[in-house]
């Protein structure tokens, strides 16, 4: 059993952020599920990345392009060599989503503030409303790293050879009892259930309820390996739209060091609507 995280440098704690938030080579980024949380108060010096208005293409169902990503980083005062530290609400759910996209476009120095916004608040650390402005940088996005992103054809090929998937949704979504969240038809799917062979390991099981931090390396290894999610093969994680599964992707890839983990961002809202796609209930 492992006792330490594979890449501990991907995590910083709240005390580190308090000390380094305003270092010139560090940028703190808040990414939340709630679109207004940053506005009611954020870590001094932190900028906001909203997953909906900033990371998604407004027309196609896809993320912003490389040049658009580079422009966004420039506007936020992020250079290619900046250490970017993400934090957010709901146990860093959307913080890991933003980190995943930064990783996709090849940003090198990425961190998650362990415990996220909840832990920062628990410790009564300061939150401010002042929005900082940083000088624009010149930023170059790298070619997208397709080794961390799965498209539906990748998933088809993956299940054909019986490789493991992690379905990180709630048990009721996995079983098909809930086709979509009540009253949320626009982001739902016409069919319920899960991708054949997927193991149901809800994403939040990787975190401690008391302070939203990640569980220990030992506990995480136990959680995933006991369900057949092992490092010696290709793994695909998915949820409903790919945000919760980016949390599990982060845990598997950087805390447990699994070499080949992809996030399927099309997730159930694509699979559950695909004509002729195999579904298990």
């Amino acid at each position, binding site marked *: 059993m492992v006792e330490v995280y594979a890449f501990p440098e991907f995590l910083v704690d709240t005390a580190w952020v308090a000390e380094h938030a305003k270092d010139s080579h560090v940028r703190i980024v808040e990414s939340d599920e*709630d679109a207004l*949380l940053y*506005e009611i108060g954020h870590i001094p010096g932190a900028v906001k990345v909203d997953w909906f208005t900033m990371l998604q293409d407004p027309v196609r169902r896809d993320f912003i392009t490389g040049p658009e990503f580079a422009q966004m980083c420039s506007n936020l005062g992020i250079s290619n060599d900046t250490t970017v530290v993400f934090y957010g609400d709901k146990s860093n759910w959307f913080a890991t989503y933003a980190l995943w996209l930064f990783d996709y476009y090849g940003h090198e120095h990425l961190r998650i503030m362990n415990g996220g916004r909840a832990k920062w608040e628990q410790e009564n650390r300061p939150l401010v409303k002042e929005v900082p402005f940083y000088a624009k940088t010149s930023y170059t996005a790298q070619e997208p790293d397709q080794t961390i992103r799965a498209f539906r054809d990748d998933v088809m090929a993956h299940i054909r050879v019986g490789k493991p998937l992690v379905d990180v949704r709630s048990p009721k979504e996995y079983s098909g009892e809930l086709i979509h969240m009540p*009253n*949320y038809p626009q982001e739902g799917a016409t069919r319920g259930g899960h991708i054949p062979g997927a193991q149901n390991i809800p994403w939040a099981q990787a975190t401690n309820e008391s302070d939203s931090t990640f569980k220990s390396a030992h506990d995480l290894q136990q959680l995933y390996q006991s369900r057949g999610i092992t490092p010696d093969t290709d793994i695909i994680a998915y949820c409903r739209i790919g945000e919760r599964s980016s949390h599990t992707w982060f845990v598997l890839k950087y805390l447990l060091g699994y070499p080949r983990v992809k996030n399927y961002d099309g997730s159930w809202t694509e699979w559950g609507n695909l004509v002729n796609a195999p579904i298990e209930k």
Partner: protein
Amino acid sequence: MNSVNASLPPALQSIIEDFQLSEGREKLELLLQYAEEMPPPPEWLQAKISEREAVPECMTPVFMQADVQDNQMHFYLDVPQSSPTVRGFATLLLKGLDGLSPEEILKIPNDFYLDMGLEQVLTHQRLNGISAILAHMKLLAMKVVTASS
């Protein structure tokens, strides 16, 4: 613009117009103002909140009660501080609907918020929070109507 607007209650109509006049990020700032203006729940409500009978349609726990005096409905709401978007929706509905009769509340179109243009800055899923709160207000209004008929 929607022709249905002509029949909206004046307070709600004026809120919608404020949102129409603001653009992009200003719409979020306006919503934030509503979130910050949410009245604290009265003491009797706080006692009930411990029982936490949340509106089941919302991912964010929304606690709502209503009373009726002289055929005017008054709503009392509590939404966690950590969910300012939902607090904004709730306060906006509270201000737009306060003092209306149950019948008037039942007539409000479920998609009234589409005219506010919030889909530019919020996902459909977040916007559905607003219809879930309205739906629950209508449910409470319906109970009053049914009880008095």
